């Protein structure tokens, strides 16, 4: 071993060497992992790809690959990257998109459901009006095929922000086996709340313990809101904004409900202490007290499909998105069926829809519009929705062939909901939807438990919470 090299000792050399090696190692590590550290290794990151965020997993993104390939074949100059963002529900998904915005890395296009339509329109999205006017002839086929109520759900202050591609109304699914065991058949289309209670009562007595006649979850879609809508009320006041004539006159001049169309929904007041709201909650409270319905839990009801397929549940509110799940859970075509929501003062239904919104920060809005327009074509929607795990917004796609392998026999109910009940409305979701939903979810369990007095007191508390939320938004 050499003790002296160039006047330095072996000890100092070793330490320096170690430091130098360590430094070199760190530098090498930094250089080698630079793409990872800066996220450059994510496909599409750092190039000019258009980023499209969807609620879902990598598998959901891969399921859209055929659509992306078809788009790329027609628009080779536009690179597309589907970015799946996981979330427990839409509220969670929107929170993550907002975090991406705050981090300076927003997507260019986002698949937004009714729950977030006004949040995005108010703060994040680009109105489509100019594009729609420009490509009106090309879009005529789409508008001819899609019910105007679905478009109105994406109008905000007179402008249109999304072209809805899929939607679902809160219809009533019925387990035919349990219904028949109670000596019943599918209820009539105009069945009432009282008919509903009677059907549930008979199913319960036929099945006994361990069976739940009516299962519902505590959320904006399919929770208490469909019951409120059929009682011609809601927990928020509902009005229409002025404007939108440019759109209705151009694309829906013959709409029978033309006079009622406006520039989009406005939900800016609390209405929880309305007497009809109390009536509705009291009806649900009685259902729960009698053991005909469950006390609703929060969440998306992930276990519902399996329980319904196993005959543990008699009825539940859901849309066309349930069909494929029930089929995969082993339910035969005649094992279940679907009917309109039971009527009360009206038979107005609740629905939710979704479509792509172009972010106002999108780098290439024209390219983003081409994607939005492309996805609204029938052949694109057939690629996007090959099975009935949702309801396509194009009426022509909701046909016997679409449900031939899965059922239900009464599949016409899905689109008839809009045709027969044109006043059907979207999920009440103002820009402060998350806070509104939190307030509603917080009070529903208490409002449907205990006595009528408790229901009224809880609705008063809901009213104050909603007022606070809506006041802070103004």
């Amino acid at each position, binding site marked *: 071993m050499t003790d002296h090299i160039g006047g330095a000792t072996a000890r100092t050399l070793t330490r320096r060497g170690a*430091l130098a090696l360590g430094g070199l190692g760190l530098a090498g590590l930094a250089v080698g992992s630079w793409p990872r550290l800066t996220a450059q290794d994510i496909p599409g990151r750092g190039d000019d790809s258009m980023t499209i965020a969807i609620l879902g997993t990598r598998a959901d993104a891969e399921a859209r690959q055929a659509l992306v390939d078809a788009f790329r074949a027609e628009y080779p100059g536009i690179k597309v990257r589907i970015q799946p963002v996981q979330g427990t529900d839409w509220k969670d998904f929107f929170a993550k998109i907002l975090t991406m915005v705050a981090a300076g890395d927003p997507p260019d296009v986002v698949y937004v459901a009714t729950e977030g339509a006004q949040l995005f329109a108010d703060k994040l999205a680009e109105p489509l009006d100019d594009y729609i006017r420009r490509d009106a002839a090309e879009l005529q086929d789409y508008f001819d095929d899609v019910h105007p109520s679905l478009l109105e759900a994406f109008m905000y202050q007179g402008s249109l922000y999304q072209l809805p591609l899929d939607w679902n109304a809160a219809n009533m699914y019925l387990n035919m086996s349990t219904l028949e065991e109670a000596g019943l058949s599918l209820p009539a289309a105009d069945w009432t709340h009282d008919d509903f209670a009677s059907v549930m009562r008979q199913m319960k007595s036929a099945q006994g313990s361990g069976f739940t006649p009516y299962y519902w979850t505590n959320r904006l879609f399919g929770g208490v809101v469909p019951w409120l809508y059929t009682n011609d009320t809601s927990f928020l006041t509902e009005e229409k904004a002025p404007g939108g004539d440019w759109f209705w006159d151009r694309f829906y001049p013959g709409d029978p409900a033309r006079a009622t169309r406006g520039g989009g929904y406005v939900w800016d007041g609390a209405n929880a202490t309305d007497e009809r709201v109390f009536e509705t909650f009291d009806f649900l409270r009685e259902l729960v007290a009698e053991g005909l319905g469950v006390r609703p839990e929060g969440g998306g009801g992930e276990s519902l499909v399996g329980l319904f397929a196993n005959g543990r549940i008699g009825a539940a509110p859901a849309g066309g998105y349930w069909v494929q799940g029930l089929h995969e859970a082993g339910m035969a075509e005649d094992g279940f069926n679907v009917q309109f929501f039971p009527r009360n003062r009206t038979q107005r239904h609740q629905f939710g829809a979704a479509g792509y919104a172009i972010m106002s920060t999108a780098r290439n809005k024209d390219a983003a519009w081409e994607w939005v327009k492309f996805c609204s074509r029938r052949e694109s929607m057939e690629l996007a929705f090959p099975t009935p795990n949702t309801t396509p917004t194009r009426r022509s796609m909701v046909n016997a062939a679409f449900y031939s392998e899965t059922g239900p026999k009464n599949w016409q109910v899905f689109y008839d909901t809009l045709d027969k009940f044109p006043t059907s409305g979207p999920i009440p979701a103002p820009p402060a939807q998350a806070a509104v939903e*939190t307030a509603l979810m917080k009070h529903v*369990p208490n409002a449907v438990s205990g006595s009528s007095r408790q229901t009224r007191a809880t609705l008063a508390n809901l009213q104050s919470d909603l007022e606070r939320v809506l006041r802070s938004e103004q």
Partner: protein
Amino acid sequence: MSNATTNASAGAPARLEHTELPRKESNGPLRKQLFAWILLAPTVIGMGVFTVIPIIGSVVLAFFRWDIISAPEFVGFENFVSVVTNPTVRVSFLNTIVFVVIAVTLQLGIALVLAAMVAERLPNWLRVFFRSTFFFPLILSAASVSIFMGYLFNEQFGAVNWLLGLIGIAPVPWLTTPTGAAAVVIIVYVWQNFGFSFLLFVGGLGSIPKEIYEAAEIDGASGVKKFFNVTMPLLSPTTLVASVMAVISALQVFDQPYVLTRGGPGDSTRTAVMVIFESGFQQLEFGRASAIGLLLMILIMAVTYVQFRLSRRFVFYQ
């Protein structure tokens, strides 16, 4: 042995000693400091970027109204006033305190009893088995555990009510009544977290000299007396560490109530961290969320301070 020393003892030229030793004396501490700083740098930078700067940012943000999208607007103490007067925030802090008292008591109590049983009465292979088994829930994702537990405690279809039904007990509305929901959140939290305290207690029990127990036995102490007069005092340093960590962790509970109950029914299981999350990421009121976060931080610091002050009276160091 250093080269300088070797050369000096061998009668090497004085020039080497004269030129090298003084330089080493003057630069040595500096080099050592530099070396130490290089080693510490990743941690210091990490702490700075991910802890200190966010804390400072959060303090500043508490005085602004900011929804991520628009520019922040200075509002003074408005967020703090809004937080203090908001009934949901008040209830969430109260819930958190009640949760901490019950959950931490159960967590430490169960962990201590099981640790004492495992340490004393079981063969070695069973000790290893139980150590692993009790620690296992801690390495699971709290969200996954909560989803699974949600199924188990479902009123209509859950296994828990099915088991209770076998012995004639009517279905319990676990997740849809305030008491039931709070009980489930506590049960799930304690089940998942007691393993850590258990390991601390096992370690602490192993460090108590056996001679003390032998002396106690000679003096005629029973098992219970030994536990309270020998084990507990000598285990008190471990108990302090376990309780401080358990309290800090419980004050920040989020996953279990968020997944199991979403804070309901009503506000019955809404916790302070849930309100921070809801204010920030759902209601886009990041200033208010920061203000609540600051209040929670002050609460954690106060409780920890009290614990350490009390430890002077109750903790016995050998």
